């Protein structure tokens, strides 16, 4: 990993991809830690609550409130920066990196998409 880099330009809003090439959302926010003179990236935050907080403004805070109400203040997905293998046009995770399954994806699969005939067919 590069030791020192522009976090906003190289990391923010980038696609997160695991070792199998599956998408796991965007880098919606970052967890930074002060370390001597500089800041160290501790973790990547992804998912709806991180995104709406980042969005800010009346729309962002309204969406965040709604999310908190619906999910009992479920926190965003946290990916420790140590699980990042490399960053190019996307943020690539190491094999075996643990990414929590997305709530909305699972809910829609279980309640809607999997019930439609042909949901398991190769596209």
């Amino acid at each position, binding site marked *: 990993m590069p030791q020192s880099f522009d976090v906003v330009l190289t990391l923010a809003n980038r696609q997160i991809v695991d070792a199998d090439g599956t*998408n796991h959302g965007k880098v919606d926010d970052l967890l930074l830690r002060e370390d001597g003179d500089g800041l160290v990236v501790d973790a990547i935050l992804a998912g709806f609550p991180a995104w709406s907080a980042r969005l800010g403004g009346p729309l962002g805070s309204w969406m965040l409130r709604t999310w908190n109400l619906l999910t009992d203040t479920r926190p965003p997905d946290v990916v420790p920066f140590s699980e990042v293998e490399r960053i190019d046009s996307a943020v690539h995770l190491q094999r075996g990196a643990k990414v929590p399954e997305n709530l909305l994806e699972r809910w829609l699969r279980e309640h809607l998409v999997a019930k439609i005939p042909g949901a398991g067919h190769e596209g």
Partner: protein
Amino acid sequence: MKKLLAVALGVLTAIGGFVDIGDLVTSAQVGSRFGLSLALVTVVGVIGISVFSEMSGRVVAVSGRPAFDVIRERLGARLGLLNLAGSVAVTLLTFIAEIGGMALALELATSVHYLLWVPVFAVMVWIVLWRAKFQLLENAFGLLGLALLVFTVALWQLGPDWSDLGAQVVSFTVPENETWVTTAYYTVALFGAAMTPYAVLFFSSGGVEDAWTAKDLRTMRLNVLIGFPLGGVLSLSIAACAAVVLGPLGVRVEHLGQVGMPVATALGTLGVVIALIGFFAATFGAACETGLSVGYSVAQYFGWTWGKRPRPREAARFHTVILLASLLAPLVLVTTIDPITVTEFSVVFSAVAIPLTYFPILVVANDRGYMGEHTNGRLANTLGSVYLVLVTIAAVAGLPLLFITQMGVQ
């Protein structure tokens, strides 16, 4: 045949940009009212959409990142969301219009009221987007859409005064009975339709569906160089047929039936049958292109799994978006709004979506971190910058012109 199939993505993309239901009617309208005096606008549009599709296709082939991925990455969450709202609005309106347009066309053929056909087509399009492989989709509708070349044959058969048509192309004058404001409105409408943002979103996402890598840059360019000019030829053939047959009769083109009249005059029943196949394929193809593009842009903005390659259950959010779009279309059309009018409304949202789509693509195509040795050359940058200015002016001018001319009626 294999060579032809290799460029099917470019052809299908161009069909959505140049001969979707709104374009079919607009081209014939423009032809009958303005002759070929606006033909150069289409040519300028073909070059513009080719420049940005090539750029975006190159970004996909080299970095694997499709257009809306890049848009979110460069514009950030907020401005990216604004573009997403604008793009999805344009794309959805077009999607709705295609379904309404197919229903109207079938009303002409069957005398069954079009509102009964609307849910039938909405379900048909959804089934295709749910089940069909991407390659089947691009091959079937890309190739069948070529039936519209019957307009080119018809034009030949009509034996027009070619030098007169040629003179119209370079006349640069406002025809009698038309005001300069109306001419400006149609200029902007034609240019805006050619440069529609979903064409680039679809083309670059199609590159991911077709698994392009840097080795496929030649194929990608071939798609651009054949697809978009072909779309332009189809659009101009329809306009020219209308100019030769409908213009002298003073026909005001308002629906698809009138668009096909010159073919009937020139080639009889067989010609009409081929034109109908072309209409159907182009409209259905454009419905697939826009329906998928809605899903592509939302999924790429949020970083979800998307596309026709994973099983639908593995891309549940992507397929839910497409399902919602397919449900929305009949709900909007049941208000009996005219589908052609629906496409004209999309001008409003293009004003936001067009600059915010092309600017980040131009920036990333210059980023060595993404592109390595394949960054933009001088030609791509010069054309890209010029078109970014042109398309932004057109996008902003579109709004007042729409209201002043009441969508070109006056």
